[in-house]
């Protein structure tokens, strides 16, 4: 039979699992192997655009969240916008209206703390490094010493999500790319593993996966033979959340990391970058990083 390749009409009845999956919303009835209701849940029974239904559910969940647990909401909102209304609608492409960025205050980064590193490993399914030479490290704590007077400080460093990324320039296939909203990613479907981007990155942000991986997180695919780096938890960001490292830092009480939209003049991060003296690592290279630092 000859079938022209075109997308068929979305089926409107009977699709149980598609309905509440907008933008990573949890609580799917399908998520576990338990028995399913014979017919769709009552409030989802009316055939509707799955995305619209998802959005309604999302806003409901967000309202519940913010009204019943105000304190964590305020805390988390201070470190980065987290509420359902901020989630990008699933069917909309990202736009350059936003530029996601981080602001890290090295002065608040406590010696010996590596909560951000652990959170990243847990979130993205990265094993804690046992072989530092070959294990992937998306974020790491950099300990700096001034050779003149011996003073020290530490700061987390990760992919700087540059606006002029050298890694994007050198990638032969275009697998290393910058999303419109500023997040620099590796499209592992077209990465050939040549590692040229690793040569080009001034921040040593990229890792190469040296061995076969198993049990990856469904929202953070990664595998042997491709290059990877900090994704700024793009799966969380698209759902209106903040990166795991920022959240973990907030939970420790140090509050050294802030996430937000640098283009939004009303956001906490934009206000701080405009108010305080901030700097960026190797700003002289002209890469225009999206990660700002204070007190380095």
């Amino acid at each position: 039979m000859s079938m022209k390749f075109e997308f068929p009409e979305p089926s409107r009845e009977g699709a149980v699992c598609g309905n509440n999956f907008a933008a990573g919303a949890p609580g799917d009835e399908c998520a576990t192997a338990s028995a399913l209701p014979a017919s769709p849940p009552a409030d989802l029974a009316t055939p509707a655009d799955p995305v619209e239904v998802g959005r309604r559910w999302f806003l409901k969940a967000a309202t519940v969240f913010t009204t019943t647990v105000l304190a964590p909401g305020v805390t988390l909102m201070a470190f980065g916008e987290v509420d359902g209304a901020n989630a990008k609608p699933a069917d909309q492409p990202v736009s350059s209206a936003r530029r996601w960025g981080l602001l890290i205050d090295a002065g608040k980064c406590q010696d010996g703390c590596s909560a951000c590193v652990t959170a990243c490993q847990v979130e993205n399914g990265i094993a804690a490094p046992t072989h530092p030479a070959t294990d992937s490290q998306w974020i790491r704590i950099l300990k700096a010493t001034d050779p003149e007077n011996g003073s020290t400080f530490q700061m987390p460093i990760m992919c700087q999500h540059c606006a002029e990324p050298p890694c994007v320039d050198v990638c032969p296939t275009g697998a290393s790319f910058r999303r419109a909203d500023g997040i620099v990613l590796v499209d592992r479907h077209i990465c050939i593993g040549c590692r040229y981007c690793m040569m080009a990155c001034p921040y040593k942000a990229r890792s190469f996966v040296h061995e076969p991986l198993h049990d990856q997180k469904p929202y953070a695919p990664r595998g042997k033979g491709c290059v990877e780096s900090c994704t700024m938890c793009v799966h969380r960001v698209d759902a209106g959340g903040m990166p795991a490292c920022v959240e973990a830092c907030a939970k420790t009480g140090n509050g050294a990391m802030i996430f937000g939209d640098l283009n939004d003049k009303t956001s906490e991060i934009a206000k701080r970058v405009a108010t305080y003296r901030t700097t960026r690592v190797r700003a002289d290279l002209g890469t225009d990083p999206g990660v700002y630092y204070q007190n380095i």
Partner: protein
Amino acid sequence: MQMTRQWTTLAIAVAVLACLVAGVVTGSALAGPPQPAKGKGEKCVAPTDWMRRYHMQALKHQRDETVHEGIRTPRFSLKHCFECHQVNGADGKPVSVADPKHFCRTCHDYAAVRIDCFDCHASRPGEPTKTGQAMDNPHAAASADVATLNRYLEGAKR
């Protein structure tokens, strides 16, 4: 001389035929076409015949949109497939692609088409991301966060 050539031709023909017969007899064709496990729900996100033929094109189109533009509609998302198309093992938990019962392997093993999606992708549904968990279970970190909030507000006064 001609007799030898005729015998040689016959011998080669018989050998080829024997190989073909052996292949058919021992091959999986005799076991019949693959029977992938039925997914959850009444129907898939697209007609079965269409999916059989075009699932890779749909997945590839989706992956480009998701990775490059952040479009995360669930319809043809690989992660979403497993919400319905998970196959449970003996322990009642979904099997990974290492198990021949895995949904994708049922057909792909038969057709001898290697899939390398799962070099990187998880082949069974997992826990939702932590953001989702927080939304799902808003009371989880309540007490710890009040203390955090106080410390932050203290610090912000400086």
